[in-house]
């Protein structure tokens, strides 16, 4: 448009850019037609009704909205939903089996790794990515891996213990020295 206005036919409608996307969420392919500007967190929570992923700061700081994108933690408030087309997403709903909790979830329960629970889904997914890569992390490695996830109940002490608990459960022969 060369000036501040453009004369158009009266029946003109603004075209809203849309795309059809198919995302494998927790192992199940799911499709939606979305506006290109939809964020991944909105696709998961509002379109697919997977409200376990929490929207915290909405400014790429807090990590509450962390999901695994092809196995790696990403902030779902800072990715476009359209970018997930053809990729695999794991949310907190994908952790537990039909009848039992994931060892990381058990660890958070056993070690009191949460108070309000708002940061917990993101914490657990960052922890999962860590343990998938490094089954026997030391405390520094755990704190490093979780340093993009903020807990405002300041429960970091127990969160670290929860991840250590999960590491022992998932790899019984490792980390014996931690169990005292």
């Amino acid at each position, binding site marked *: 448009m060369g000036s501040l206005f453009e004369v158009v036919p009266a029946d003109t409608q603004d075209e*809203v*850019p849309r*795309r059809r996307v198919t995302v494998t969420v927790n192992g199940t392919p799911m499709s939606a037609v979305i*506006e*290109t*500007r*939809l*964020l991944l967190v*909105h696709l998961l929570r509002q379109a697919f009704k997977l409200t376990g992923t929490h929207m915290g700061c*909405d*400014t*790429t*700081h807090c*990590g509450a909205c*962390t999901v695994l*994108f092809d196995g*790696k*933690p*990403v*902030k779902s408030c*800072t*990715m*476009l939903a*359209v*970018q997930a087309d053809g990729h695999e997403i794991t949310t907190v709903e994908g952790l537990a089996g039909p009848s039992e909790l994931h060892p990381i979830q058990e660890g958070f329960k056993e070690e009191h790794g949460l108070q309000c629970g708002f940061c917990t889904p993101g914490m657990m997914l*960052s922890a999962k990515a860590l343990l998938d890569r490094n089954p026997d992390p030391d405390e520094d490695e755990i704190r*490093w*891996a979780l*340093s*993009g*996830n903020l807990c405002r109940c300041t429960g970091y002490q127990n969160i670290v213990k929860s991840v250590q608990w999960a590491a022992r459960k998932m790899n019984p022969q490792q980390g014996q020295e931690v169990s005292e």
Partner: protein
Amino acid sequence: MYPPRFEYEAPDTVAEAVGLLAEGHGSAKVLAGGQSLIPMMKTRFASPEMLVDINGISDLEYHRRDADGSIRVGALCRHATLEQSQVLADHQPTMAAASALVADPIVRNRGTLVGSLCHADPQGDWAAVMASLGASVIAQGPTGERVIPVQEFAVGPFQNALAYDEIAVAAVVPPPKGKPEGGYLKMERRVGDFATAGVAVSLDRSAGGVARAGIALTGVGPRTIVAEEAAAILVERGLDPDSIAEAARAAAGAAQPKTDHRGTAEYKRHLVEVFTSRILKRIAGSSEEAA
């Protein structure tokens, strides 16, 4: 927050991406890691009419050391890849040190070095690191490539030297003139916050002397600051307690910090001096041990 509406294209090749940018005549923007661009769009600091998502261009997903010793980082190489890189651990200590300090681990899984340079934030870590190394950005446009030194690449805060139909396809660090040594230190209030102050030091050492030195500062001026005088002291006099102290003072003198919620100007200047001295002392100490 929702970003404003935009057309979205995800080309498979750089040539297609350049074509889309050319058609956009300045209304299109490249989306790589998106860790700065998406927040800027959500807050309406940026509202491109089209996003050209380059995440599908797998040719850009690499970093490598070439036969001549130069290091080349493709536009889709994530911070996390550099953090885990054996190439950097073995050959480029300044980049290796910085790669673990950019943003936080989750952002590092998406964000890219080249994207960080393009974002041209005066508080961006990579701009200082790459300036200290004398690196360049390779820009590809409709008629071919051109090489832009990092110091000329950021033309102002959040402004880079790319034409609207150019993509920054790689960053290149020239071959070292000796054994590369260096480090990066920054003060941040918490993980993921912008630097209160940061210092990148890179030296090429040969025959006990310093063949080349680069010192650049993060977050203490309207742009990344290259402390040329401090670097010259090291090249002239090598590493000894006096030259280190003098170079650190010169680096602090080159800083142009402003008092803000992250600290006073005096405090930031002090940080620059301490960080510069700390990195240089460590380098001097480790080479004594080796000797």
